């Protein structure tokens, strides 16, 4: 076969129905004569389907998060019958808020949607102004360096083991913050992908450190809330 070097692409073309008629005939003949090849085609078809399912599941998780964020703001926009003067007190005494039945109802619907109740803990997210204005987003991959237990250094000395999808988001409400689940979102008005950005990961403690232009910031992975970036 002429396409042995590009087997992946050749199979893709077949599965995408983009082979020329004669090539298609050759391809199908090869499948008939060569059961192992046939199985490779089936395997690639299955992987492609699986990637779709994987991508859809990831996207759906994002939608669920968007929905939870939206609901969260609904709670904020329509607080229970609390006087405006109580607002400050409310922040300190959440118990008082919880005594209203309406809040329980809304809380129940929210907690169903949130993976963990973590957002509750973060008052800034919960009570913060919903009027954020996102003006720019850049998406790209950043390298992740594995840091050994006996190694204190950064990028240079370590092996690049992985990468993570990162986004730099310009949002008036968050001058220098982050949110790190599957994607690492860095909120900053000044950073760009031209800056040197990488992550280090300490396997032993599962701790991540974000390194931006040689400055280090400890970051926690797996939380929905947006947190401040603090230099180590």
């Amino acid at each position, binding site marked *: 076969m002429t396409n042995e070097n*590009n*087997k*992946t*692409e050749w199979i893709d073309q077949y599965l995408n129905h983009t082979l020329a008629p004669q090539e298609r005939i050759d391809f199908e003949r090869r499948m008939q004569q060569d059961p192992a090849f046939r*199985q*490779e085609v*089936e*395997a*690639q078809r*299955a*992987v*492609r*389907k*699986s*990637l*779709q*399912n*994987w*991508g*859809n599941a*990831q*996207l*759906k998780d*994002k*939608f*669920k998060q*968007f*929905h939870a*964020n*939206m609901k969260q703001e609904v709670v904020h926009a329509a607080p229970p019958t609390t006087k405006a003067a109580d607002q400050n007190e409310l922040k300190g005494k959440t118990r008082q808020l919880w005594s209203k039945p309406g809040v329980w109802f809304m809380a129940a*619907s929210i907690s169903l949607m949130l993976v963990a109740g973590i957002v509750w803990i973060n008052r800034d997210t919960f009570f913060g102004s*919903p*009027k*954020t*204005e*996102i003006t720019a*987003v850049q*998406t*790209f*991959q950043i390298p*992740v360096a594995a840091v050994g237990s006996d190694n204190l250094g950064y990028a240079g000395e370590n092996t690049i*083991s*992985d*990468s*993570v*999808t990162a*986004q730099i*988001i310009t949002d008036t409400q968050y001058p220098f913050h982050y949110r790190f689940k599957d*994607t690492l*979102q860095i909120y900053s008005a000044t950073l760009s992908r031209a800056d040197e950005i990488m992550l280090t990961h300490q396997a032993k403690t599962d701790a991540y450190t974000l390194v931006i232009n040689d400055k280090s910031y400890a970051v926690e992975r797996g939380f929905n809330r947006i947190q401040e970036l603090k230099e180590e």
Partner: protein
Amino acid sequence: MNTKNNYTDEYLIAGIKSDDEAIMEYVYRQYYPMVAHLVKNNRGNDTDAEDLYQEGLLVVFQKIRAGEEIRFLKAYIYSVCRLKWLNLLRYKRRHAEQFIDNYEAIEVSFDDDEKEAVPYEGALQQALAQLDETCRQLLLAFYFEKLSMEDIATRFQYSQANTAKSKKNKCMDRIRQKAQTILQAL
């Protein structure tokens, strides 16, 4: 986030294509009330609305990424969700003939069958999970997001599209071999 629509459809569609989370969230919020209204007007509740909207958006995003030309995003989203809800009502033998529209639908077509259950899907997902992150992201960018090799090279910071392509092919070779082992074991 703005609640007023300041963005053109072209801008939003480009954002969805490039997996821009802020734009996707904006789109999500922008059109949810319309679909929730539709579902609740037609024998559905909030949970139905959320489920349906998310399934509908998956279809719309897939169409966008596959390069389908969409001229009116709002009408497209409405029409996909509307058809999905109608299919579901018919499936449940509810009264779809009394359907109340709250927006003008356009003609859309997509595969609305229940996902076929593949016996080896669990094993394949596991194999995907075990693949290294860069490989998985590369494959997802190509096969799921349907990005061009140039866009993939930019995102993954490869100097050329050809580098991205050969890496992608190597990753597919690897996972295909694993998948073959899984299929052989059936």
